[in-house]
């Protein structure tokens, strides 16, 4: 019999790291817009048994960071510029995946590097610089998401007394599907469904599933970023997947 093989830990997922192991091919665009089934392929062949022990891409991300940090601490501002340029895309992308808003992600990226700048003198080389930057990024995003939730709650309470409603606001939620090819619509719908499901997770579960499934970090790296134990990473990831399965199940059944 065949069982799915464990995936290799994908390492840091940082610049120079290998791409996700199971990227969805364009050819699957015509599949039903089922967030799970759409991307389904045949089961992964027989396990090779090499899961966690498989070779991880060398984490060369840190290469040069220590020297740059030391130079910055010694007063070289250009060294900080080099650090920003090295990590700004990664920080921005993580923000974008967490808050799902391009403008806010740019602001959050700025906020992250301002915090890095202000606290880098206290940074100790006990763990990787990128791990530290990711930790600041996740914390900034979680703070932002909590503020957004509070704001949405306040707006919701305020607008509930408005009997006229907001037709313009409703229209903004409906994408214009005119002249959009069917396959593109299905892909967009798939992404929208998954995005909505992710947004319904708690901030902690959102962070962990994004760090694993999109950023491709190992449990050890996630534990460092989130400042928790490896066991916590393991159990939270399980809970995040279970919750997503639950959230997506009505849609899966509908399209079965």
């Amino acid at each position, binding site marked *: 019999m065949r*069982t799915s093989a*464990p*995936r290799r830990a994908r390492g840091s997922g940082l610049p120079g790291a290998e791409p996700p192991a199971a990227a969805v091919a364009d050819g699957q665009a015509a599949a039903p817009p089922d967030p799970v089934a759409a991307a389904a392929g045949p089961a992964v062949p027989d396990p090779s048994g090499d899961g*966690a022990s498989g070779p991880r891409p060398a984490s060369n991300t840190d290469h040069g960071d220590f020297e740059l940090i030391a130079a910055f601490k010694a007063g070289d501002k250009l060294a900080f*510029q080099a650090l920003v340029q090295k990590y700004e895309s990664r920080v921005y*992308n993580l923000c974008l995946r967490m808050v799902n808003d391009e403008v806010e992600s740019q602001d959050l990226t700025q906020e992250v590097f301002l915090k890095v700048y202000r606290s880098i003198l206290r940074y100790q080389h006990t763990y990787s610089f990128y791990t530290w930057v990711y930790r600041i990024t996740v914390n900034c995003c979680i703070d932002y998401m909590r503020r957004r939730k509070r704001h949405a709650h306040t707006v919701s309470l305020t607008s509930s007394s408005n009997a006229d409603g907001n037709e313009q606001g409703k229209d903004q939620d409906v994408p214009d599907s005119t002249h959009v090819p069917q396959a593109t619509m299905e892909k967009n719908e798939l992404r929208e469904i998954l995005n909505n499901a992710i947004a319904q997770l708690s901030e902690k579960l959102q962070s962990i599933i994004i760090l694993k499934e999109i950023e491709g970090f190992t449990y050890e790296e996630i534990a460092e970023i989130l400042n928790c134990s490896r066991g916590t990473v393991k*159990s939270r990831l399980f809970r995040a997947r279970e919750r997503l399965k639950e959230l997506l199940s009505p849609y899966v059944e509908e399209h079965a």
Partner: protein
Amino acid sequence: MKQACAEMAVELSAYFDGELAPDERAAVKAHLDDCPACREALRGMERLHDAFSALSAARPVLSQRKPLFQDIMAKLDEA
């Protein structure tokens, strides 16, 4: 869900991620050999992962946009 499956659930998620020690991995694999429900659960994780990959591939990246460095340095100068 069978008792053994319930006990296996968290391990199965870590097995999928390739994060188990060899002995733990062997135990999960032995369970999978006899459990169609857990094999299906594993396939579900694979499908979810594939959906995430599609989501990830669809996002614009900063390299296609204006670099933020100048903005960041301007903010630092203001501070």
